[in-house]
């Protein structure tokens, strides 16, 4: 008992602090202040550093638009720097919503991990404190450039926590790291608890941690193939388990074909993001190289665009479906129960 308490006591304390922060900042008479839409200090274009970040983003948008047509350019700048320029391409925005692929056009934890792994591949060992700090600094700079939105902050803190724990030779499971990250974020910014993008990011990651491996393995056995899109299908399903009710609650519309469209297009995203990131830097130096890179990159963006547009045309692609708060709570309660029983069963079979 003492051992368990010793292990969980720090986490328990953090939970208590987070609850107090939320209570004093988001309950009662101050509730409205918590619901206000806030701009991060990195978005204030009138002063440093928002002004410089805004210029960088503007430059990236112009570069993308100079070499690529719409909506490919908007897709790329969404993937690489998280700039939301979808208002200018309303039909494509609608297609993204209908096919449940709009998450691609925002910078997410995936981008942060991509930057971190690129830096680590240059620096070498991840078990050196100097490399860890440099990597964290670069990913922080990248996160700031992308607007420092909740999904990116989550990925940056979580990545840092996991790296640091591993550096000290300890092990940490994904769930604990995610929970710790979420609590830290709520302690610093209590209003994040009510932010839709925070909730979606947290729940999608939770789904991946809890069900990711199991579902991917199950699908591989079911379809008897190791094909790359099986992994994308598995991750889509596991993320959706937790995300769907919230999407229904907030947006009142659920995509039926997201399970089909995501595996068909998700593989293009890392390729386009990596080429696109280099493209943004190179385009300012050489227009010839930028043109060549745009030609190489375009088919990946085009596959995404064409597939999304094609599947969005079907009338059954999405349905209007609003879940109330009570069914949402019941749903999550049942999912947690399911996880509990799965874990119990797994432990029993491991003991045998």
């Amino acid at each position, binding site marked *: 008992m003492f051992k368990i308490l010793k292990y969980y006591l720090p986490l328990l304390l953090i939970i208590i602090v987070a609850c107090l922060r939320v209570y004093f900042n988001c309950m009662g008479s101050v509730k409205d202040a918590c619901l206000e839409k806030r701009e991060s200090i990195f978005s204030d274009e009138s002063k440093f550093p928002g002004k410089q970040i805004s210029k960088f983003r503007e430059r990236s948008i112009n570069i993308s638009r*100079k070499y690529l*047509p719409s909506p490919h350019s908007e897709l790329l700048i969404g993937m690489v720097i998280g700039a939301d320029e979808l208002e200018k391409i309303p039909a*494509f925005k609608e297609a993204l919503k209908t096919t449940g692929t709009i998450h691609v056009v925002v910078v997410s934890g995936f981008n942060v991990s991509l930057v971190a792994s690129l830096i680590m591949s240059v620096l070498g060992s991840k078990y050196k404190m100097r490399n860890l700090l440099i990597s964290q600094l670069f990913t922080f700079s990248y996160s700031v450039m992308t607007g420092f939105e909740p999904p990116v902050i989550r990925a940056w803190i979580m990545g840092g926590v996991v790296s640091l724990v591993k550096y000290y030779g300890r092990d940490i499971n994904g769930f604990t790291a995610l929970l710790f990250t979420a609590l830290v974020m709520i302690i610093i910014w209590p209003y994040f608890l009510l932010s839709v993008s925070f909730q979606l990011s947290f729940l999608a990651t939770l789904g991946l941690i809890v069900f990711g491996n199991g579902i991917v393995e199950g699908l591989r056995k079911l379809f008897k193939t190791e094909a790359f899109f099986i992994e994308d299908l598995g991750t889509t399903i596991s993320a959706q388990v937790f995300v769907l009710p919230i999407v229904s609650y907030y947006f009142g519309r659920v995509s039926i074909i997201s399970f089909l469209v995501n595996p068909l297009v998700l593989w293009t995203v890392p390729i386009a993001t990596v080429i696109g990131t280099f493209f943004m830097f190179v385009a300012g130096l050489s227009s010839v190289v930028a043109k060549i890179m745009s030609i190489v990159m375009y088919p990946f963006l085009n596959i995404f665009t064409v597939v999304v547009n094609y599947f969005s045309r079907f009338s059954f692609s999405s349905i209007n479906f609003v879940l109330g708060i009570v069914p949402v709570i019941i749903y999550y309660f049942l999912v947690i129960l399911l996880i509990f029983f799965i874990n119990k069963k797994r432990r029993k079979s491991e003991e045998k």
Partner: protein
Amino acid sequence: MKRSDVILVVLVYLLFSFRGVASAGDGYLNLEILDVGQGDSILITTPNGKRVLVDGGDNYESDYEISKRIPFYSCYIDILILTHPHYDHIVGLNRIMQRCKIGTIMFNDVSFDSRDFRLFKELSSNFNIKNMYAGDIFEIDEVNFIFLWPDKKFLQNRIPDLNDMSFVFLVDYGKFEALLTGDATEKVLGRLSFNKINELTDSSLDVLKVPHHGSKYSLHKYFYSGIDPKMCVISVGKDNKFSHPYPGLVEYLNEIGCNVLRTDESGDVLIRVR
């Protein structure tokens, strides 16, 4: 990744690489009224593949449509026409000018200030600019563009309604004629001579691009019955806040025997002429 996966990826990649490459002329005059929502954008491709783009809509949809037809890495548009500087005609053109080379840009400058128009003038300064007035004609690949409005004199006055300065011109290719009217108002239609139009069209106008998305302020019964169009195309957005097109106008066009097509119902409207 397994070898079969790599082959699959490469094949799909190559398949999507050649979109828009086969973009030369097909021997037909193609007049495409693009579905860009609540706005106007018309792409004319001559039999030998020269391109004239009239307006760009209020978003970037026209750029997407252009990229389907012209390879994105060598985008060239021979003539770009801005009928008048309202946002629902100009935004898409600004986007296209950011990445495409343009032969000549045709528009008339007026004392109207908007962010989009300022950007348009800034971007167009990189290209050859031509002002067009009633009576001007240009020919490209045996397709004639005959300008009927606005008068040079009219533009010298103060223009309270920008729609009044909208280009109105005839696209004439052999026996085919289409009248493109931008957002011309009832007042402008009243000043146009349908006798002159009938003379140019041999009393048989094939296509009328209905002015101003079918607004009731563009309903001029005398003019429409005078030019007697066979096909009337209304460029209009689905469930738009202006309630365009005006039902009375659609009813009247049907009454005079015009086959009415709407972009909100039919999507892109393509007219091909041999």
